[in-house]
Each structure stands twice: as C-alpha cells, then as structure tokens.
C-alpha cells in the first residue's frame, strides 16, 4: 500500500471507521512514513478547526417571524377548509329545507290542478258499448214542464200550440235545466267518449226527447220530421203510433216545433220511420240500434221554414 492509498484512508482512520486489519496497516505505514504522518496531523487540525467553528446564533426575531408566517398559513388553510366544508354545515340544512319546500309546493299545485288534468284524460278511456244491456245508461228526466204538468194550457192539440214568445223562455229554462242535469248525469254515470257522445245527442233532442231511466229495458232514439205544416201532424203521429201498437207518452209544442215522446216496440221503429216519411223529410238524429223490447222515441216536428240545425 503506497502513501496515496494510506492518505485516502486517513479520514476513516481518524474517525475509527476502518476494519482492524486496515487500521493495523495504516498504523504500520504511518510509523515508517513521516510525510503521511504530517498529512494525518494536518487533517486532524483541519477537522478540529471545522468542528470548532462557533455555531452561529440565529437572529432573535427568527422564531417570531417563522411563527407569524406559520400562523398566517394556518389561518389561510382554515379559510380554505371553511370555504370547502363550513358552508356545508349551513348549506345542507338549507338545501334540504328548500327541496322540501319545492316538493310540497309541487304537491299542492298538482293537487289543485289534478281535477283539470283528469277530465280530458277520461276521453282516452275506451267508449262504453251502449248496445250491451249491462252497460245501460241511466238518465234522469229533465225537469221540463210537460203539458200535463201545466193544466192552464189548453189540452187540445190546437190549444197545445203555444206562441213562440211565451214558449221561448220556457225552452231556454228547460234547456238549461237539461244541460245541468245531463252534465251531472254524464259526468257521474258515464265515462269517456260514450258519455261525451250521449251528452251531445241529448242536447240535440232537448227539450222534448229524453231518455227515461227506469227499471225496464228502455232505450231512446230521436227522429226529426221536417213538415210544411204542423196543423195535422199531431193527429197523424198519434194515429201512426197507435197503428204500430205504441203510445204517446208525452207531447208538447213550442212555437213551430212539436215534440213527442213515443213508446214503441223496437221492431216497429223502421215502420214508424217510414210512416213519418209520409209527413215530411225524416232525419234520424240518433244512430242507436236496438236489440228488442219497448223503446222511447223522441220525435221532433219542425216546420220547414224554421228548420234549425
């Protein structure tokens, strides 16, 4: 081992970091080499001088400055944490409250609007098959004053004719009453398009032609006869109905119009229609068909000049 190798190990030799064998080698060399011995001495002094450096005292304000910055940082971190999380303490209940308020408002609004929403949807319901006997409609008779209910009126056919001026208000009142009754009945007892259709049909028969509710199987149809003169129509209709084995339940006059409610076997309807055609043009306002039994038929007789549609 030459001097260069020995001097490489001098630091470790001083710090006693060498293995016993290496240490022995270095010690042996140092005894023989004054140059390396001097290098060792210089190194020891160098280390001693370095280690002997007096530790510099930090400035007295250093701790305060450090802590001032640290506290500033801490409050800034708290600020960030507050921004991120603190609002949650406030916001969560607020958001829950707002959501509940919106939900309740929506519920009450829906409740209020619900009937309006339901009504149009009933149109979508499949129409009731009116031909089915189980699905018969019950209709209340409109409080229309009949001839019998009005004894003051002349009982005779000629006297039944009421002038248009006095009849008009009655018609209007009756029509209103029928409308109200119809609406109530239809909305409660029918549903969907069938109810809607029935209501429309009834309006066309008012005031004299009404379907009557009863225990028996009764259905209705409407016929409008357009005649040139209504003078003998009354007798003609009475006669025809009698011949067909039926009877007039009700008859009344309003201006130039005559209204009859006739009870007749459904099988004779065709014949009735044919007989009425002899009086004038017949228009069937109801498209109902009948399976059998007695039915009520509304006949409206209208003077051609006052044909209204």
């Amino acid at each position: 081992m030459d001097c260069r190798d020995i001097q490489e190990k001098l630091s470790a030799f001083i710090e006693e970091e060498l293995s016993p064998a290496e240490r022995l080698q270095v010690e042996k060399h140092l005894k023989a080499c004054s140059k390396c011995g001097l290098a060792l001495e210089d190194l020891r002094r160098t280390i001693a001088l370095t280690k002997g450096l007096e530790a510099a005292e930090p400035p007295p304000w250093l701790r305060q400055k450090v802590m001032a910055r640290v506290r500033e940082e801490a409050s800034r971190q708290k600020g960030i944490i507050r921004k991120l999380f603190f609002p949650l303490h406030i916001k969560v209940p607020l958001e829950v409250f707002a959501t509940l308020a919106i939900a309740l408002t929506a519920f009450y609004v829906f409740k209020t609007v619900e009937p309006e929403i339901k009504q149009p949807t009933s149109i979508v319901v499949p129409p009731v098959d009116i031909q089915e006997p189980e699905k018969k409609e019950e209709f209340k008779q409109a409080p229309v004053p009949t001839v019998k209910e009005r004894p003051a009126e002349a009982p005779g056919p000629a006297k039944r004719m009421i002038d248009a001026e006095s009849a008009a208000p009655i018609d209007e009142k009756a029509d209103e009453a029928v409308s109200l009754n119809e609406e109530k009945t239809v909305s409660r007892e029918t549903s969907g398009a069938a109810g809607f259709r029935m209501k429309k049909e009834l309006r066309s028969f008012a005031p004299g032609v009404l379907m009557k509710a009863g225990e028996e199987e009764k259905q209705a149809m409407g016929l409008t006869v357009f005649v040139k003169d209504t003078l003998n129509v009354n007798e003609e209709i009475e006669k025809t109905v009698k011949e067909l084995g039926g009877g007039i339940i009700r008859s009344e006059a309003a201006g130039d119009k005559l209204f009859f409610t006739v009870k007749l076997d459904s099988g004779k309807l065709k014949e009735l229609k044919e007989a009425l055609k002899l009086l004038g043009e017949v228009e069937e306002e109801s498209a109902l068909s009948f399976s059998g039994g007695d039915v009520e038929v509304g006949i409206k007789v209208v003077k051609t000049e006052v044909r209204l549609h």
Partner: protein
Amino acid sequence: MQQNPDPDYETVLRCQKGDVDAFEQLVIRHQKKMFNISYRMTGDFNEAAEVVQDAFVAAYKNIKGFRGSAGFSTWLYTIVLNLSRNRLKQMKARAVKEPLSLDDPVRTHEGEMKPDHPSNDVPVPDRLERHEVEQRVHGCIKSLDDEFREVVVLRDIQGLSYREICDMLRLAEGTVKSRLHRARESLRVCLKKHRGEL
C-alpha cells in the same frame, strides 16, 4: 408498547392535528441547527435567516404528509438543505448579473459594513485571531464545491451520523465517506494556503 425513539414524535403528532403551538416548540428546538446548516451552506447570514423561515413554513404545510420513516429532524434538515442549495444557485446567478465591487458594503451578522482594506497599521490583536481563523475556515468551506460543502457541514459542523447524512442526501455510505475525505483534503489545502501552517 414500544415507544417511538424520535424525541419529536409526540410534538409532531400534535402538529399534525393542527396544534400551531406545538409547531412553535419544534421551531425553538431546531431553529439553531437549521440556521447553521443554511448559514454554512449559503455563507450569508440574512439569506440563511430567510431560508430557515421558508423551510419552517414548508415543513408546516407538509407536516401531515410526514410519516416518520426517518427522524423528524432529518426530514426538517433535508428541507433546509434543499432550500439552501436553491438559494445558493439564485445567489450565484445574481452574482454573475451584478458583479461585486471591492468597495461594496459587506453583509454581516450585525448588518452591512464597509470593507476594511488591508493597511500598514498595527497587526491584528490576539483577541481577534480566533475570529479571523473562523472567517478563514468559513471562507474555505464556502469555496468548496456544493457536494463537498454539504457533507462537511452535515458531518463536521453539525455532527450528524453517516446514517442521517445518507438519508438526507440519498447517497450510499461509501459515497458519503469518499466525498467527506475529499472535502477535508480540499479544506486542508485551502487553509494551509492562507495560513501557511495549520
């Protein structure tokens, strides 16, 4: 239950829970060593003070991430060492841009002072000899390459163990020892050149 050997363990735990006062205890405990590492690395009192402040603030910000794989002091000294290296680079860059004049004021512990040029006056009194020696050693340390300076500072000035130095510098023990030997040799040459004899 085995107690953690790190004397700072309990205090660090309190800091991690947000106790700022506990951090102040760590500042009191470590500021001197932190300051001296930085001062010997940068060779500048004021720069060292600034570096130490930055190092403590950085440590506070990251204390929750400290897992204790090494000692807290080792972790803290690594921060100040790294920041000192960065500051040193900035200082060197600044020195290149603004070359110093011999008449420029010198920054010292007490502030700035005008350079005292050699004169033919009476020799330096004995009481100042020690101070002169220190200044010379300080100057020689400052003249070392960064990688040599840091091992001398950590081992010979701060007295850290090889284990700690290896952890801080992320170097093998052999490399540290080798660097240290070269650093000491450079110092010896530097001191002998200026003093004639050691």
